[in-house]
């Protein structure tokens, strides 16, 4: 015993641990529009070995063949250590999981077994509860690290001996978080979407001007400029929101190349209208009509995220609000500057016509590229 105690003191100050502690890695994918869930569970072979003897031939090595032979045990004994359910409390209903595949995976501290699984809930889950019981009776310091993706919203939780259950996305906070995520995406989308910004700006160039006697004159009052701006932005918003909703709900479907080409065309036409203002007296009508096309473009984003169908209302609303917020930011940035500069020759004779020509050319290039 004396040996032990001295060794203990000597080494108590030893640096922190070398090998990694025991963790398993779990991913879980679900959507509010389907009762199916899929996932993957990576378990260190060392940990698995504690629960089921993988080394069948007892040679000290775990081979791929030995692991594969244990697939039935993994399905019947290991996977049930993980239970997923939809709903909470008395209304909770299990989503039975089945093992769909087995692979290997190298993590920083060695090789893991990768268990692919899927499950079917009684109904499309709005919220999932997860109960994790693996290995705690052999290693109480084991952790299970779960990363879930529900309709594109990521959550990360950690299971431990003392915290074996987690409710995912169940609270209002979870939904609010999801909603905010879509608002951010909407903002981001309009801000990185050059063609949408350009279309909006093209229409707004002359909002601080009036076309009189064959030339641009500064809008006499702030009120007039604001009215024009508001009319354009509102018209654009109403129609693009409409087609965004219709396309996302699957009521309208058009091929992407067509929508993208049409968007380029609207930009070109918007710029042309600045050069030939006599032909397009009411700019808000243009915004109203072309907004229909841009809405279809926004919708392709949500579609690409796999967000279609029933559970779409919340993401759709959030995304749309985000788009509008981004749009308002652009308007608030541009219009006051344009209003201040409206009386200058530079703005009227150079910025509006030259800018419009440049935009027309650019949009023409897009159009050709998108059609080809």
């Amino acid at each position, binding site marked *: 015993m004396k*040996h*032990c*105690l*001295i*060794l*203990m*003191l*000597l*080494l*108590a*100050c030893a*640096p*922190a*641990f*070398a*090998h*990694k*502690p*025991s963790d398993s890695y779990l*991913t879980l994918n679900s959507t509010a529009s389907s009762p199916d869930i899929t996932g993957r569970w*990576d378990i260190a*072979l*060392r940990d698995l070995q504690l629960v089921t003897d993988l*080394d069948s031939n007892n040679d*000290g*090595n*775990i*081979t*791929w*063949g030995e692991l594969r032979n244990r697939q039935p045990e993994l399905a019947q004994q290991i996977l049930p250590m993980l239970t997923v359910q939809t709903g909470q409390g008395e209304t909770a209903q299990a989503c039975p999981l089945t093992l769909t595949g087995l*692979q*290997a*995976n*190298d*993590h920083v*501290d*060695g*090789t893991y077994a*990768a268990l692919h699984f899927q499950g079917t809930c009684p109904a499309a889950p709005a919220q999932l509860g997860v109960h994790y019981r693996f290995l705690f*009776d*052999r*290693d*109480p*310091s084991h*952790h299970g690290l779960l*990363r879930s993706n529900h309709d*594109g919203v*990521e959550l990360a939780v950690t299971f431990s001996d003392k915290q074996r259950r987690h409710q995912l996305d169940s609270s209002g906070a979870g939904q609010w978080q999801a909603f905010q995520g879509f608002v*951010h*995406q909407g903002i*981001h*989308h309009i801000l*990185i979407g050059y063609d949408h910004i350009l279309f909006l700006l093209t229409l707004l160039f002359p909002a601080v001007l009036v076309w009189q006697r064959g030339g641009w004159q500064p809008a006499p009052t702030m009120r007039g400029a604001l009215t024009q701006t508001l009319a354009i932005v509102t018209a654009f918003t109403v129609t693009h929101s409409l087609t965004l909703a219709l396309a996302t709900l699957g009521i309208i479907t058009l091929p992407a190349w067509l929508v993208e080409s049409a968007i380029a065309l609207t930009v070109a036409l918007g710029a042309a209208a600045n050069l030939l203002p006599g032909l397009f007296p009411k700019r808000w009508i243009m915004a109203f009509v072309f907004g229909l096309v841009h809405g279809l473009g926004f919708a*392709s984003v949500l579609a*690409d*995220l796999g967000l279609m169908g029933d559970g779409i209302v919340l993401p759709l609303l959030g995304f749309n609000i985000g788009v509008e917020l981004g749009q308002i930011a652009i308007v608030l940035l541009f219009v006051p500057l344009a209003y201040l500069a409206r009386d200058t020759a530079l703005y009227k004779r150079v910025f509006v016509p030259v800018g419009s020509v440049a935009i027309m050319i*650019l949009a023409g290039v*897009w159009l050709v*590229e*998108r059609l080809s």
Partner: protein
Amino acid sequence: MSWTNPQTGRRFPAALLLILCGGLLVSTTWAAPYTPDNDNTVLATLSDSQRALTPASPPQNEADALRLARAQIDYGRQQGDPRFLGYAQRTLRPFSQPPSPAVSLLWADIEQQRHQFTRARTRLTELLEQHPNQGQGWLMLANIERVQGQFDAARQACGNAANSLPPTTVVLCQASVQAMTGQHQRAYATLQSLADSPLVSDTTQSVWLQTLIAEMAIQQGEPERAQQALDAALALAPQDAYLRYLQNDLWLQQGHSDAVIADLKNWQDRDNALLRLAIAGKRSQHPQAEQWQHAYQQRLDAAELAGRTVHQREHARYLLQVVPSPTEALTVARDNWQQQKELTDLRLLLAAATAADNDAARATARDFIDTHGVHDAALQAHWPEAQP
């Protein structure tokens, strides 16, 4: 600007997906699974000791449980493998309601190894109130107090151990405290004469003695003497992880990066070896330097993901000597300083403060040095005037 990119239509969703997944890509390094080519591919190798130490059914009586838990804790420490602490926890669990003094001591050992110092201290204090003759408990308590910079409490605990432990053990205990409190010269001399005497014959005690001498020689700025002591200790305990890291740190200090790489290349599965490889690799511009750095970074990320922060000392050192990012290093070094106040931690704090040019942190280190009269050759480099 890629305005004319024909991919424009696909760029938006791609960017959005990137945002969605970006956080994950940055924060985790979960690899992609694969299907091995053939059934004979070896995925993992189990050691005999590992099998022996993880029996399918746990011991049913306390004596067996104590033996197994002790072996698990010691093996985990020797291998630097924290899983064995979890196994020991499991082994002890059925005998912990309430625990006997022997079980309590093992629990405290697990806790202090996990750097749960407060919990370990509370447990030990309660135990020692009722069983003041648990010398081992006093030693452990002394160690925790010393690591946390509570030197008076540490001295007192060493003294209390004298009632139940042999005098040489108490001398070693006190010397480790004196090294930090201005009596470094005296302690160093005492240990050297102890090494020359026949008083210490027991192997484990000799290893401890030589390790302390090596550390104090480094502190004294005598690398040759340190190497002598290290050689003596390693001859007795060649597999000892703590000693090997000490040896490698001495090499690093002397610029022998090649020696470090040669010695630790086969220990890459251990975080602490990997850190030293990354440092040595970077200094010697070794072709694998980046690979080691990347691997260590991955381990840090994995620990962070699991919410574990045991590695603060090493993390700070990595940020300071490998990345290098002095400001971040200082942040971590300061957090670490809240937990651990050994010489290594002090050196790190000061080096990070100097690198980040932070006077407040330098003052913190300086205060500690002045308050306790710490003497150290490495610290002296920062303040030539502070040392005699």
